[in-house]
C-alpha cells in the first residue's frame, strides 16, 4: 500500500482550519477593542497637553480649528490651534462644553438635520454636508454668510442663520424655519464646531475646495 500523503490527511486540514478560525476570531475581538480606543473621546487635559485624539474632548470649542493638508496622509486633517473665542468666551469648562454639545446633539436629532444634511457620513445629500460645516470658507471672514447675516463672527452668523434660515437665500433649496431657539442654536453651533474637529480620514474629500459643484451653480 502506498504511503499516505499529509495533504490528503483529514486531520492536517482540520487543524489548519481550527488554527485559522481561532486566530481570526482573536484578531477580530482584539480589533473591536482597538477600535474602541481609536474612537474614544479625548478630554480637556489631552487638548492642553497636545495629545492627539480622533475625537477631541468637548472643550475643543475653546480653540481655533483649521483644515490643513497632511502630506503623509494625502488628505486634509483638522488641526487644533490657539485659543479662540466662541460666543465671546474661550474658557468653557469641560462640564459647560459637554452640556452645550449635548444640547446641540439633541437639537440635531429633534430637528432631524439628517433628513436633508449629512453628519459624519450619515444622512442625506439634499442639503450641504455638515460634517466640516465649521470649516466651510463661506462662514469665514472672506465668505458671504457673515455679511448676509450682519454678524462679525462665524458662530454668531451660524446661530443667526439657524434661527431664521428662511430669511437668508443660500441654495436653490432653501432651509425651512425649524423654530430653533437662540440657546438651541448656540448648542448646535458648538456641536458643529466639535464635529469639524473630528479626524475623519479626510471625509468629506476636498471639503470647501470645490466651487459650483451642484448643478454648475
Amino acid at each position, binding site marked *: 500500500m502506498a*504511503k499516505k500523503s499529509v495533504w490528503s*490527511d483529514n486531520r*492536517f486540514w482540520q487543524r489548519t482550519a481550527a*488554527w485559522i478560525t481561532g*486566530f481570526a476570531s482573536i484578531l477580530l475581538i482584539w*480589533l473591536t477593542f*482597538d477600535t474602541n480606543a481609536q474612537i474614544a473621546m479625548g478630554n480637556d487635559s489631552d487638548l492642553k497637553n497636545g495629545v*492627539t*485624539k*480622533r475625537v477631541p474632548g468637548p472643550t475643543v470649542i475653546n480653540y481655533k480649528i483649521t483644515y490643513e493638508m497632511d502630506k503623509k496622509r494625502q488628505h486634509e486633517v483638522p488641526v487644533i490651534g490657539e485659543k479662540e473665542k466662541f460666543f465671546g468666551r474661550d474658557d468653557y469648562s469641560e462640564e459647560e462644553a459637554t452640556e452645550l454639545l449635548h444640547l446641540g446633539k439633541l437639537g440635531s436629532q429633534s430637528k432631524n438635520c439628517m433628513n436633508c444634511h449629512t453628519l459624519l457620513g450619515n444622512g442625506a445629500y439634499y442639503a450641504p454636508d455638515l460634517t466640516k460645516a465649521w470649516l466651510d470658507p463661506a462662514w469665514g471672514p472672506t465668505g458671504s454668510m457673515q455679511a448676509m447675516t450682519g454678524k462679525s463672527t462665524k458662530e454668531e452668523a451660524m446661530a443667526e442663520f439657524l434661527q431664521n434660515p428662511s430669511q437668508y437665500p443660500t441654495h436653490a433649496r432653501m432651509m425651512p424655519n425649524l423654530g430653533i431657539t437662540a440657546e438651541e442654536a448656540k448648542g448646535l453651533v458648538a456641536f458643529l464646531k466639535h464635529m469639524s474637529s473630528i479626524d475623519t480620514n479626510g471625509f468629506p474629500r476636498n471639503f470647501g475646495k470645490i466651487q459650483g459643484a451642484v448643478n454648475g451653480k
Partner: protein
Amino acid sequence: MNAMFEPFVDVVPSFFGTLAQGPLTLTIFLHTVIVLPMFWIYKQEKARLEQEGN
C-alpha cells in the same frame, strides 16, 4: 518623492497601525501567521502518519 521608510505617525497609536502602512504589510503579516503554523502542523502530522505506519 516618498522615502522608503517614514517615521510612524498615527492619530491614536495602535498595533494595527503598523499593519496598515501599505498594501503589503497586512498581507505579509497574515500570510506569516497563517502559513508558518501550517508547516508545523504538517511536520507533526507527517511524523504521526509515519509512526502509524501508513
